[in-house]
């Protein structure tokens, strides 16, 4: 079965640079979520999109922005990168309409290292 695809899998950036993370949800899934997981921590919710509309925001810095496109893929844009942004970034997707499942399935994550 198709899974959530994230690219790139690894990314190394310098401070103050910009990064773009991409997420391709499971086909037919209508909802995308972004989470950030620091070392030794649980995943923290950043932002979500339902049917291509921003739905909810968590503890996402103003330096970060995201959007979901017409084909349902999503991009997380991160500017003015700081050392503290080094983390594992997960994208997850779920199917919300016409189902009571609503399980979030996670991609493999993008490991971002800011030097």
């Amino acid at each position, binding site marked *: 079965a198709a899974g959530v695809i994230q690219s790139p899998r690894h990314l190394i950036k310098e401070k103050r640079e910009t990064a773009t993370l991409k997420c391709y949800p499971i086909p037919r899934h209508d909802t995308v979520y972004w989470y950030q997981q620091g070392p030794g921590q649980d995943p923290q919710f950043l932002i979500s*999109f339902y049917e291509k509309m921003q739905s909810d925001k968590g503890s996402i810095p103003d330096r970060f922005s995201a959007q979901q496109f017409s084909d349902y893929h999503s991009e997380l844009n991160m500017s003015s990168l700081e050392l503290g942004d080094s983390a594992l970034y997960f994208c997850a997707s779920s199917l*919300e309409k016409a189902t009571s499942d609503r399980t979030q399935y996670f991609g493999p994550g993008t490991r971002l290292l800011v030097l």
Partner: protein
Amino acid sequence: AQTVTQSQPEMSVQEAETVTLSCTYDTSESDYYLFWYKQPPSRQMILVIRQEAYKQQNATENRFSVNFQKAAKSFSLKISDSQLGDAAMYFCAYRSYPQGAQKLVFGQGTRLTINP
């Protein structure tokens, strides 16, 4: 706001034995979902089992089962016949019921070690 607590930072079990991981949560909602996710050293987040709060029957998936106590707001995971491949960080997570992009709220995680 909902919170999820896993009071066992680490657990260990002998291979082929049974282990139970604890999770408690706090919510004022009556309908919601609960999940257990597994994160092996590869750091992939893998769904282990899910429970819908309105279902009284405890969910099971092969060697994995839950003990869902709604009144006590408790959601423990039992792993039977533990295998070396079960070694991972296990996260308990809560999600509100309504349709739409409801975020997952995670516990702090329990690191499970399997002793051969």
